[in-house]
């Protein structure tokens, strides 16, 4: 089902639905925020929509901070239903990849159920984008409830899920459109896919021998400039590792989940001090082996949607493609 929204009507519509729902939009190049009039739709945001589902502080347990206290069973902070507009298809695809692991995690699932994701196709791929090479078709809108395509006069909207259908059923600002409009969507998709094929690297990675990749000698050179910070990990729409910490203030305690990066030395350090991945090269290698071998082998897709944020933001100038090329041409 397709709808159309005239260009000028977008902000009005967002204001209208904000009265009934919690609405989040990209507010700046940095990231998302509640809709209060400001809208940034030029390019994708630095922080992806992942922040809504794997938040920087997720309380999983509450307790009184005294020895022998029982954990309080009330740990599901109620999540209000919300609409996120302006999600890029790569971010949404990233969520579907994370879901393969977090499918039964009650916290992730609760947030997923209560969220309506409205996607926005990019006008053109960014400098560092390569989602299509990773097998992502942005026009398919995986993980989204509806997908907006910006055209000359306004937005063509493709509904993708029952949640999306339910939302748009009585939105007056949108008019239902016929075959011609649908065809223009299909045409745009066809043109895009012809220009942007899937990379043969993925097939080569599937066939590559795991231990040979691990023992390869290119890792040291690639990892030299790496700072082992958490930028690529935290900005990545598919990275999902988390740390668990007990935080106590006075007599109130909370066990929280927070984002963690496998690049940090503490990530794999045992209490005894032994660290199976002590060297920075080992941790660098582990992140890419996970994304482009272990996950690929287990689920058939790489743990990467080609959004290019890592390439754009890495202060050390490391380029993911060079790593993929080295791995796939071994």
């Amino acid at each position, binding site marked *: 089902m397709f709808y159309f929204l005239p260009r000028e009507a977008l902000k009005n519509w967002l204001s209208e639905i904000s009265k009934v729902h919690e609405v989040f939009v990209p507010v700046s190049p*940095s990231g998302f925020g509640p809709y209060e009039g400001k809208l940034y739709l030029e390019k994708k945001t*630095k*922080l992806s929509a992942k922040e809504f589902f794997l938040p*920087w*502080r997720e309380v999983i347990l509450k307790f009184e901070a005294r020895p022998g206290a029982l954990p309080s069973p009330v740990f599901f902070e109620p999540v209000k239903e919300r609409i996120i507009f302006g999600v890029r298809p790569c971010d949404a695809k990233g969520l579907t990849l994370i879901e393969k692991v977090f499918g039964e995690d009650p916290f992730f699932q609760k947030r997923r159920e209560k969220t309506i994701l409205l996607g926005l196709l990019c006008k053109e791929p960014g*400098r*560092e984008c390569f989602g299509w090479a990773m097998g992502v078709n942005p026009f398919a809108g995986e993980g989204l409830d509806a997908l907006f395509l910006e055209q000359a006069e306004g937005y063509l909207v493709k509904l993708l899920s029952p949640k999306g259908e339910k939302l748009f059923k009585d939105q007056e600002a949108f008019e239902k459109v016929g075959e011609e409009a649908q065809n223009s969507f299909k045409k745009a998709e066809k043109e895009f896919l012809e220009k942007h094929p899937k990379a043969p690297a993925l097939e080569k990675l599937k066939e590559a021998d795991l231990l040979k990749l691990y023992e390869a000698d290119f890792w040291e*050179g690639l990892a*030299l*400039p790496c*700072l*082992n*910070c*958490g*930028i690529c*990990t*935290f*900005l990545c729409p598919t990275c999902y590792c988390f*740390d668990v*910490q007990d*935080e106590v203030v006075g007599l109130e305690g909370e066990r*929280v989940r*927070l*984002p963690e*990066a496998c690049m*940090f*030395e*503490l990530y794999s350090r045992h209490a005894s001090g032994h660290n199976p991945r002590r060297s*920075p090269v080992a941790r660098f290698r582990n992140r890419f082996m996970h994304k482009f071998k272990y996950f690929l082998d287990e689920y058939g897709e790489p743990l990467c949607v080609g959004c290019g944020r890592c*390439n*754009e*933001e*890495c*202060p*050390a*100038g*490391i*380029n993911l*493609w060079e790593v993929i090329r080295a791995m796939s041409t071994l």
Partner: protein
Amino acid sequence: MLTEKIREIAKKLLEEGKIEAFLCYEGTSHPFRNRAVLVKSPEEVKKLLWPSFGVINLATPLQKLKGQKAGILATGCVSRAIVVLIQEGQLKREDLFVVGVPCPGMLDPSKVRDKAPEIIDVIDDLKDEVLIVTPEDKIKFSREELLRNNCQECRHPVPPLYDLLLDFSGREKSPDPYRRVQEIEDLTLEERWQWFEREVLRRCFRCYACRQACPLCYCPTCFVDDSRPQWVGKTRDLIDTALYHLVRAYHLAGRCVDCGSCEAACPMDIPLRLLTKKLEKEALLAFSFEAGLDPEAPLLFTSFDENDPEDFMLTSELKASGKI
């Protein structure tokens, strides 16, 4: 051209066996990002270049090369960081061959980025002009406008420690190194906290790029990662984040050489170097001390002088026993 000089000297040192490897910068597919690279053979030196965007201090990856006899391209701040590392026992002077360059300053990627929506290339003449090449045009900018903040405020463009100094004329010392610090100092206390909360705390997402990029943050276990006791919480809570930044700045007092790597590494453009620059000013005013100039000199916080303005170390015992 500076790039040719660098390649020439690296080739010579490798051919003569004076070094096992040379640490410098190479270009990447991104028009305003350079990347540290280690070349081990004379044939590879063609990768090397003068990094207009060499924003991460080379003394940081240098510490991954312990044991190898390495050559390194050193501007003022790189050389000073090496001096501090030698003073603190982290590097051995004999393991290094420092190729010094009187630094012309480097360009700031985040200033370049904002100049045009699509940039294909950046051409830096190392003197007064930078050309930003877009698909349609070549736009001229003054070099000063695009220069990194720490380069604009640099007091030591010529490296104090080197085995060889390349023949090149770099920048002059900055006459006003604490201009930006002064701007913050001129704010009221309330305004200063608001600045700190807005510019630093609300943006930081604890990626630790600042700490990892800093050549002088080399503790095997950072205070943030201690668990017995746990000093700082690990989430993006504002107070925990404030504690992280303030304590890290203090751990660099009297040591920071203002290479700006922290600020360059930060993905959220947090003006981090202002925290340490303020402490650098304090060290200068209170103790006439500048970090990283003389490897033989004592460090600021592991030595005291009878004329230090704080006299508690000398006089507290005497006061306590009633003698004065």
